[in-house]
C-alpha cells in the first residue's frame, strides 16, 4: 500500500514537473494558432479551431524572413569562428603547462560572467566611429566574447579526456604538434567540438542586448524584430507568438540534442 501510494506521488510529481516546464511554451505555441479573438478571450480559450493565418502572415513578411536570415548568418559565422579559434586554444590548455595558464583560465571565465552592457557601450562608440553599426560583422565579432570561452572550456575538457598514449605513439612516428592536433585531437575531440558549436549557436541566436543597440534596420536579428512588434495600441498577438515560435523551435531542437551536456555548457564545466 505504502509502496503504491509512493509510486502514485512520484508519478504526480513528475507530471507536475512536465506541466510546469512546458506550460509557457505550450501557451505561446497555442496562441500562435489562435485567431486574435480567441487570444483576447477572457476566460482563456482552451479548445479552439487552429488557424495558420499568423504563420502565413509572417512567412510573407520580408521583415521577419530577413531577420531570421540575419540571425542564421550571424549565429553560423560566429560559431564557425569560435571553433576555428577556440579549438587550438583548448588543445594548448589541455596539453601544455606554461606560465600564466591560470590567469588565462580566469580571463576566459570572466568573459562568461560579464554583463553584455559593459561591452555594449564602448563597442557602440567604436562601431559608430568605424561606421560598423548595423553590419553583420560587428555582431559576429562581439558574439565571440561569449562563444570563444564556451568553445575553449568545453573542448579543453574533451581534449583532456583523450589518452596521452596516442600522442606518444604519434610523436615517436615523428609527428609534430600541429599534426598531432589535426590528426588525433580534432577527430577524437569531435563530439566536444560539436557540443560547443551547438551551444555557441544557441547563445548567439538567443542574444538580444547587443543586437538591439548595434543594429538599426538592415541587420536586425530575429529576437529584435519579434520584440519590435510589441508596440502600438492593438498588439498583433498571434503574429508575435508565431514569430516567437519560429525563433524558439530550432534552438529547442538543438538544445534537445545536447541536453546531456546542458549543465556543462551553462556552468563552463565547473560541475561535471
Amino acid at each position, binding site marked *: 500500500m505504502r509502496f503504491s501510494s509512493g509510486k502514485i506521488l512520484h508519478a504526480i510529481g513528475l507530471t507536475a*514537473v512536465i506541466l510546469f516546464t512546458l506550460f*509557457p511554451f505550450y501557451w*505561446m505555441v497555442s496562441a500562435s494558432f489562435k485567431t486574435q479573438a480567441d487570444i483576447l478571450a477572457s476566460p*482563456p480559450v482552451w479548445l479552439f479551431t487552429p488557424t495558420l493565418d499568423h504563420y502565413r502572415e509572417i512567412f510573407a513578411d520580408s521583415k521577419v524572413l530577413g531577420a531570421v536570415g540575419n540571425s542564421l548568418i550571424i549565429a553560423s559565422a560566429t560559431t564557425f569562428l569560435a571553433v576555428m579559434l577556440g579549438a587550438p586554444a583548448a588543445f594548448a*590548455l589541455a596539453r601544455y603547462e606554461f606560465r600564466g595558464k591560470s590567469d588565462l583560465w580566469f580571463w576566459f571565465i570572466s568573459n562568461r560572467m560579464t554583463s553584455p552592457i*559593459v561591452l555594449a557601450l564602448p563597442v557602440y562608440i567604436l562601431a559608430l566611429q568605424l561606421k560598423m553599426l548595423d553590419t553583420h560583422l560587428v555582431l559576429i565579432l562581439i558574439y565571440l566574447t561569449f562563444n*570563444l570561452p564556451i568553445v575553449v572550456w568545453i573542448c579543453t575538457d574533451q581534449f583532456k579526456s583523450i589518452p596521452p598514449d596516442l600522442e606518444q605513439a604519434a610523436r615517436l612516428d615523428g609527428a609534430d604538434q600541429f599534426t598531432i592536433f589535426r590528426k588525433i585531437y580534432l577527430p577524437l575531440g569531435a563530439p566536444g567540438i560539436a557540443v560547443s558549436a551547438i551551444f555557441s549557436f544557441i547563445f548567439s541566436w538567443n542574444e538580444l542586448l547587443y543586437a538591439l543597440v548595434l543594429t538599426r534596420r538592415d541587420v536586425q536579428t530575429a529576437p529584435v524584430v519579434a*520584440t519590435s512588434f510589441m508596440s502600438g495600441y492593438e498588439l498583433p498577438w498571434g503574429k508575435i507568438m508565431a514569430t516567437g515560435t519560429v525563433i524558439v523551435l530550432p534552438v529547442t531542437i538543438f538544445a534537445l540534442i545536447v541536453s546531456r551536456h546542458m549543465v556543462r555548457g551553462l556552468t563552463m564545466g565547473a560541475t561535471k
Partner: protein
Amino acid sequence: MPGRGSKPTIRPNRGYGRWTPFWFLAPAVFTLFIIGIYPTIFAFVTSFRRYNIARPRDGFPFIGLENYTSVLTDGTFWASLFLTAKFYVTVLPVQIALGLMIALLLHKTGMGFLKSLARVTLVVPLATTYAVVGLIGRLIFNRDFGVANWFLDSLGIGGLDWLGSQGGAFAAIVIMDIWQWTPFCALIFLAGLSMVPGEIEEAARLETSSKWALLKHVQLPYLMPGLTALLILRSADVLKLFDMVFVMTRGGPGSATDLVSIYIQRVGFRIFDLGTASAQAILLLIITILISRLYIRVLYKEVN
C-alpha cells in the same frame, strides 16, 4: 621549431618547443583582446570623460572622477543595484528548493518513461530565447486576457494588474525567471545526486528509512559543489539579466523592475550619456570580476 629535439625521453607533456603553446593560443587570445579587452579599456577611458552623444557640441572633455562621483551619489543607481540584489534573494531560494525537489524526483528509481520525459523537458525553458520568455510573460500576465489572472480567478482571488502595478511587475519577472532557471538548478543537483556511489546510498537506505536523514547525511556533501556553483553563477546571471525584463517591463512601471543592466542601458542608449553609463559599467565589471574570482577560487582549486 627550436628546442624541439629533446628526443624520446619518455616524459609525458613534453616534446614541444617553448613557443608551441603560444602559437595555438595566439589567435584566440588576440581576438579576445581586440573584442574584449580593448573595448573595456575604451570604456574605462570614456568613464573619465563627458561623453553625451545627444549633445555633441559639448565635445568629449576629460572631467576626472566626476562621472564616478555622480554615479556613486546617484540614488537611482544604488536603487537598481539594491533591486538586483532583492531579485536575487527572491528567485534563488525558490529555484534551489524547487530544483532540489525536481532532482530528487528524477533521481528516484522507477517511472522510467515519465522520468526521461521530464528530464528532457527541463531543457526547454533553458533554451527558450530570453526575449521570447519576455514575450510569453506579456501574454500570460496580461491584465485583460492573461492566463495568470484566469488562474487567480479560479482560485477565488481577484485578478491583478500584473505588469501595470509595481508589485505585480516585480512578481511577474520573478515568476518568469523561476520558470526559466529552476531546470538549471534541477540539472545541477541531479548531477550531484548521481555522483553518490550506489553502494553507499543503498547501505544508508538499509540503515534509515528517513529520506531527510539520507539527504542530509549522505547526499548533501555531493550536492555542495553544485550549490556553490549555482550561488555564484546565478549572481552573475542576475547582474547580466536584461533581455527578458526589457521585453516584459522596460524596467517599469516606475522603477519597479529597474535592474542594474536595464538602468545602465537606459542611461547609455536612451539618455545617450555614455560617460556616466561607462562609469556605471566599470563599477559593474568590478563587481563581476570579484564574483568570478570567487568562482575560480572555490571551484577550480585544482588549476593552481
